[in-house]
Structures are given as C-alpha cells and as structure tokens.
C-alpha cells in the first residue's frame, strides 16, 4: 500500500475531488486497520514502539504544516510541545482535571503561545525567515525559564503518576497507542487537506516569493498565522499525551533543542514539500533513535543526527520524496516544445471573458487570426475599441515615494478612468515602475492619497488591493519557482478579484494558458520556460485574477515586431472584456496604437498628459526623452 503519490498528474475537477476522497479514505482506512493492533495480543513493547513512532509523526507533520509548506523554519517546536505538556501536567496532576479534557487546553495554550510569537515576528519584512528561526529558538529557553521559576514547575518537576490513564484499549500501553493513533490521523488529515487547499497553495507561494504572493492577493500574514496556529495546537496535543506517557515532566528535559532538531531532521529527510514527507522521515528516524537508545549511546546518537542533517541538506535537499519525484520526472515523458502552438497562432485561442459576472467563455476573433486553424471561432463582435468615457477608477493625489533620499515618485497626481487604456511613459528611472509598485501595494506610500473606486488604498495591505480588482505584471517575470505553470496562474484566480474555489480556479487557469499559448507547459516549472513564455505567464497570471484594473509593466520588451502586433491585438481584446489598463511601455508604436491617453513622467513628476499623438510632439516631452539638443 503506497500512501505516497509521486507526481501531480493533470487533473480535472472531478478527478481532483475523487483523489481527495481517495487519500482521505486511505488515511481513515489505515487508521481503522491500525486501531485493531491492540487486540492482536502483541507484547506491550510493540505498542510502545508504535506509540513513539506516531508521536514523532504528529510532531514532525505538525511542524511541516507551517515550516515545510511556507518555508518559515521554526526551532521552537519544543516550546509549543512543552507548553502542551505542562498544561496537561498542571491541569491533570495539580487541579485533578480529567486527562482527556486537558488535551484541548494543551492545544489552546500551545496555539496561543505560537500566535503571540507570530504576531510579533511575522510583521518583520526583510530578514523574516532567519529571524523567525532564531526567535522561536529563543522562545524555547524563555518558556523553559518561566516554567522553572514559577509554581508551574518550580524546579523539582511534575509527577503525573497519580493521574488515571483513560481506558481506551485493553491495557494502558494500548490506550496510549490509540490516543497517539487518533492524534496522528487528525494531523495527517490536516496536513493533507491544507496542502490541497487554497491556504496550502498560498503557503507554497509564500515559500517561493512572499512579496509577490502578497501583491497577487495572498493574505500572507493571516495564512502564516493560521498555519502556525494549527501547527502549534497539534504539537500541544502531542505534548499533552506525552506528559502522561512519561508521567514525570521536567523543564530541563522538555525545553531542549532535541525536539526541534529531531522534527527538522525528520521533515527535511522525508521532504518538506509533501504532507507525507515527515511521515517517511519520522519512521526512519524513530527506528534509528530506538537503535541508539537500545545500544546505550545517546551522545553518539546525537552526533549521528547532526551528521545526518548535514548530509541530507548537502546531498538530498528535497528529501526522500522530492528526490524520488525528481527521478520519476527525469525518466517520465517530457512535454516538448513542438506541442506548443506556433506563437503566431496564439490569438486564435478562445478568449475567456474577463468580465467578472460571467465565467463563460466568449469566442472572439481578430483580424490577425483569419487563417487560424482548429479552434471554433465566431465572427468578431468588432467595432472600434471606443474610449468609453467612464467614471474615475483610480485617483492618485500628490503621491510621493523616496528611496534613501532619491525621490522616485514626487508629487504625482493622476486619474485613471473606467474602460480606458492609459499609457504611462517616461525615460528610464522616471518613476513608472515605482508608480505601479505603489498602486499594487508592493511598496508603501510615503505621502499622498490613492483611491480605487472610492476606497483608500494608501493604507491597505497589498493583498486587499489585489482582491479589490487590481492586477499587475512584473517587468522582470517573478513566477513562483516551485509551483507549476498551472498553479502559478490558478493562484491568482483564487486569491485575486475572481476569488474562485481551487477546482474552478484551475479550470480558469487552463483557459488563460490556452489563451497565451502556454497550455502544453501547464505542468512544467517556470524554470523550464524561456523569457518569452515567462512574460506570457506573467500576463496569464494577471488576467486570471479577472481584474478591473490591469497594470502592465513593459510586457512587450524583448518581443519581436510580429509578436508585438499580436500582443497589441491581445491587449485590445482584454480591454474589450471590461478591464481598464495602465500600460507602461517603451515601444512607441504600441503606445500610439493602443492608448486612449498618455501621461509622461520625468524624474518622478508628471510633465505632460493628453492624447498620445499630441503629447508626444510637445517640446518638454521630446526633451525628456532625447535631451535638450533635439527639442
């Protein structure tokens, strides 16, 4: 029976739901089968050994839910585990609370401790990963100090020998076995369901590029806090059960680095990007651990752990499961470039509507695709792309942003109207990209006002801005490196303005991949794409959010003249779908063909605004682009 699947095959919605059912049923089925073990009449040794294995699986898997998925390595799992241990010890041994009732309390205390740490550390922007690791390590010793110095422990440790073990199985050993089994099942289901959920995809995106994740609509702070809460609560439960199992709890034994070291090693060994990775790692390490304690060499055992950790990171950085996946991929069939449609035909694809009310597919034809082959097309509902005189969509007033003294955006005021394509022009370093970064929330605004459909953006988190309906591309593509092309695009369909559930988001993503000609690459990783394809991935990612305002940051740079023609037609169609577009571009031909209005920036300030042809002839504009001599 293999609990581990090797690769994510292409899945449609039903297959996906079926698979979720299958894995869930598999975990539940395995649990039911294992629940009969105590009735086989095995010696208690086996139950105790299996108890320890399950115990470590719970700890390693719970650690992995935050640290493996999101990349925020915690060295404080000992603190959360210990918080659960002492909660149960205090309630059960000193206050005579029935043991099973102490477990929810243990989960709650550990979770609260974790959330308190997260609330402080997750606000940090720059060295957050390292800081989180070190602060959680410090928390272990701080909690240990507090426990040791207060009546919670007071020094001598807490005995639980008087606490009755709940009678769940035929013997005490089997009761512990069954409790650990139950905790393990809950933990594995939590880990699996989170991995498959919207939250899980958000966590994987945070792992790869947290800033981009936030800008695309992932509520990064909340996602991390939820994962941390689940992770700590499960560790707390494991601690509560273990307190009764060892029946004597001391601060010195509990708040050590042994627990974090072991769970990190287990997860890294098994593979942190997969819910089942820590299971594999925990099984291997528990067996080793047993061999060393049985052989009476605990110190040598620790040294071997240290050495193993180094070897695994150097030679097996993706863990056992990641390594097997890589092998499977290397030997499996490769999607090849010839499966890609010729670039010139990519406009023949069916165009998904960017209209937010309807998820239906419109078919639109353009003159460029008159000779288009396969796909069914209907005559274009053409008509010139009329500048619709819309209401004010985005209003910026006296916007400012400086970088250590350099004023990148200096007192910029401009209005973007619903339905228009606004060209944002200016020489290099004039503040165009900074403006995009301010509107999308990638940078914080120093001063000024920014409102989108009447809502204040200046003090909004970037993910809120994305959910309100603003999407952007990055000039230098920044895809999530460990997510497939499909997942990259599905992410914005889920977290952007469209806010689709995961299965529908993947269907939506496939439509946009068809649209941009990337369909054959859906299961590839972004590293396998060339620059051209990565640019289109950026575009597909922005479009899948179904934005009201689309910020395009030099999407045409690096394309051939033929490709530019197609892209121009493409952008027109996007606008016809209902989006408003801010178009930052150096390719003047495209600017003149597409924009209804242009704004010219120079040294962070607006120097001209108006109809494209007229503005480009103004003296100050020519000077800004070409220097004084040409004016």
């Amino acid at each position, binding site marked *: 029976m293999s609990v581990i699947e090797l690769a994510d095959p292409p899945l449609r919605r039903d297959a996906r739901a079926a698979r979720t059912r299958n894995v869930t049923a598999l975990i539940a089925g395995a649990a039911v089968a294992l629940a009969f073990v105590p009735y086989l009449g095995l010696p208690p040794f086996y139950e105790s050994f299996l108890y320890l294995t399950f115990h470590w699986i719970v700890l390693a898997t719970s650690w992995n839910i935050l640290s493996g998925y999101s*990349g925020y*390595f915690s060295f404080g799992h000992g603190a959360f585990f210990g918080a659960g241990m002492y909660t149960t010890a205090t309630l059960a041994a000193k206050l005579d609370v029935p043991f099973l009732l102490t477990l929810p309390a243990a989960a709650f205390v550990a979770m609260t401790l974790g959330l308190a740490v997260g609330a*402080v*550390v997750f*606000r*940090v*922007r*720059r*060295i*957050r*990963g*390292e*800081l989180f*690791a*070190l*602060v959680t*390590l*410090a*928390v272990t*010793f*701080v909690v240990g*100090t*507090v426990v*040791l*110095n207060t009546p919670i422990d007071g020094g001598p440790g807490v005995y639980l020998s008087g606490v009755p073990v709940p009678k769940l199985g035929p013997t005490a050993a089997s009761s512990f076995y069954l409790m650990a089994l139950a905790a393990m099942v809950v933990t594995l289901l939590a880990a699996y369901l989170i991995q498959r959920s919207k939250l899980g995809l958000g966590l994987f995106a945070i792992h790869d590029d947290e800033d981009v994740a936030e800008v695309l609509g992932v509520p990064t702070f909340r996602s991390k806090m939820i994962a941390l809460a689940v992770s700590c609560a499960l560790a707390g439960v494991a601690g509560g059960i273990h307190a009764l199992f060892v029946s004597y709890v001391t601060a010195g034994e509990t708040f*050590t*680095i042994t627990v974090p*070291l072991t769970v*990190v090693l287990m997860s*890294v060994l098994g593979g942190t990007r997969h819910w089942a990775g820590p299971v594999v790692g925990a099984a291997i390490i528990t067996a080793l651990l047993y061999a060393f304690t049985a052989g009476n060499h605990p*110190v*040598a055992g*620790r*040294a071997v*752990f*240290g*050495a*193993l*950790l*180094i070897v695994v*990171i*150097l030679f097996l*950085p993706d863990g056992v499961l990641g390594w097997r996946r890589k092998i499977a991929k290397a030997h499996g069939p490769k999607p090849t470039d010839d499966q890609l449609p010729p670039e010139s035909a990519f406009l023949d694809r069916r165009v998904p509507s960017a209209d937010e009310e309807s998820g239906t597919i419109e078919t639109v034809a353009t003159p460029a695709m008159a000779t288009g082959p396969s796909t069914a097309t209907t005559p274009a509902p053409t008509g010139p792309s009329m500048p619709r005189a819309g209401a004010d969509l985005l209003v910026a007033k006296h916007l400012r942003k400086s970088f250590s003294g350099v004023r990148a955006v200096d007192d910029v005021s401009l209005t973007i109207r619903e339905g228009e394509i606004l060209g944002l022009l200016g020489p290099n370093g004039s503040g165009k990209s900074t403006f995009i970064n301010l509107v999308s929330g990638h940078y914080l605004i120093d001063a000024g006002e920014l409102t989108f459909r009447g809502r204040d953006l200046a003090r909004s988190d970037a993910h809120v801005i994305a959910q309100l309906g603003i999407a952007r591309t990055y000039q230098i593509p920044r895809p999530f490196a460990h997510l497939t092309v499909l997942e990259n695009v599905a992410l914005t369909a889920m977290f952007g303005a469209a806010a689709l559930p995961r299965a529908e988001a993947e269907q939506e993503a496939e439509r946009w991949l068809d649209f941009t000609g990337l369909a054959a690459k859906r299961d590839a990783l972004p590293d396998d794409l060339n620059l051209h394809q990565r640019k289109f991935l950026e575009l597909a990612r922005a479009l899948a959010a179904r934005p009201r305002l689309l910020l395009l940051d030099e999407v045409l740079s690096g394309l051939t003249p033929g490709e530019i023609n197609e892209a121009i037609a493409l952008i027109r169609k996007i606008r016809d779908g209902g989006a408003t577009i801010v178009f930052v571009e150096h390719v003047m031909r495209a600017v003149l063909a597409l924009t209804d209005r242009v704004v010219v920036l120079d040294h962070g300030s607006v120097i001209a605004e108006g109809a494209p042809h007229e503005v480009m002839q103004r003296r100050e504009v020519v000077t800004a682009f070409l220097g004084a001599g040409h004016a």
Partner: protein
Amino acid sequence: MNLPSGTLLAQSALSGLFVGALYGLLGLGLSLSWGLLRQINLAHFALAFLAAYVCFQLSSVAHVDPLLTLALIVPGCFAAGVAIQWLFARFRISPFNSLLVTFGLTVMLESLIQGIWTADFRRLESTYGDARFRLGPLYVPAPELLTFIVALALSLAVWAILKYTDAGRALRAAAEDGPIAEAFGIDRKKLALLLAGVSAASAGIGGVCIALSQTLAPSQIYAWIGVVFAAVMMGGLGRPFGPLVAGIVIGVSEALTMAITAPSWAPLVSFSLLLVVLLARPGRF
C-alpha cells in the same frame, strides 16, 4: 523585594558590562558573516566552546599559559572557518540551509565535547583567574577586563578594515550586490573564505576569554545562542560596533535584573529587549 545597595548595583553593572563585552566579542563574527556573507553560522558557538575546552585542557593538564594557547587556537579556528565556508560555496548553500548545516555541526561538536570532557562543569584555574584590582569601592577582575579590551580592539580593527582598506570596501560592495562587484573584478570567493576564517578566529579568541572567566559545560553552547543572537540583531547586521554596544546593553540589564530579582530570571532579559526592538522598529529588520 529589597533594593540592593548602590555599591552592589554598581558592581553588578560592572560585571554586566564585562559579560556584555563577551556577548559582543562572540557576536562580532556572527554579525559579519550574516551581514556580509548572508550566512548564519550557528557553529560559531560550538567553535568558541571547543576553543575554550582546548585552552582548558592545555593549561590545566599541560600547564601552558592560557594566553599562549591562542597561538594554536587562532590558526586552528581560522582553518575551520575557511573549511566551512568552502563547503558552503561548493554546495551553493542558501542562507537558510547554512543555518541547518551549522546546526548539525553544532550538535556534532557538542557531542564531541561531551564525549571527551563529559557533561560536568569545568573551571580553568590559572594565575589570571584570581587576579583583580580595586577601583574605588569596586573590584575589577583581570580576565573580564581583558575580554573587554579584546572585544573593543577587535571591533575597532574590523571597523577600520571595512572602512579604510581595499579588502574592506570590496567586502561591503560584494555584500551590496555580489554579481556587480564581481563584474568590477572583486574575487568574491576568496574574500568570503578570508572573512569566514577571520570570523571563526574571533570565535576562538572569544573561546579563550570564556575559558578564562566562565564555567564550562557542553550544554552552555545553546545557552549562549539566544542572547548573542539578540545582541547581533539589536546591533544591526554587519556593523562592527553593533554587537558590542547591544551586548553591553543586554549584559548590564541582565546583571541588574539578577541583582534586583533572582539570577534564574536572567535569560528573559535579552529576549524582552529584542522584543521591544522588534515591536518598536519592525522596519529595521
């Protein structure tokens, strides 16, 4: 709770100053390799303790003067630092994985120390140990004063090297933008090896200072990690005087806390200070 006398408080503050200097001395190398190489070397602590134990062994068994052991310890640590950096470069270790690898290394070294010298507490008895002089009503122990002077001198030297030498400027440029610095002809690899060696050598010097003034136990390695990292982060990465200043602030606060409440509360101090800095200035990190 009775407030202790002024003299006692002053004496506590003074011993806090000296312990803080030790934090700063250990933090200096960490801060440099974190700030300039983007590598977090947890093994720094294990290396310092290994040096402390070697110093202990040589002076209490072979009766070598503790300060003379530096002649062996400094080159040894330098070589170890270079070797670790070479490994990182060879396997292209990310900043995060450097933390994990050196964590593994720390555990190995700790086991080694425990295997050779057992988990018992050890104290170096040397002629320096009892040397002290009076300054008004206060006692100034010589080994601690020496630690303070070494920490100050090393920080000053690092500051001067980073500011005034070509190697220092090249290091700062490489930290700012590695590929660009390389395009201008800076040999980043060689500089990194050099810096890692120097930083490890400073850990060795710190280790000798630990041996002269502190009681040794393998488990102490982990006890130092939290407080020294707090000093490094409060002081700002890659700033030569940052760890020393922050270390002294932490050391003095700890000593006063111990004098006013109970010694066992001391581990909370550094963490609380770090928390205050985090809450007050999250943008700093």
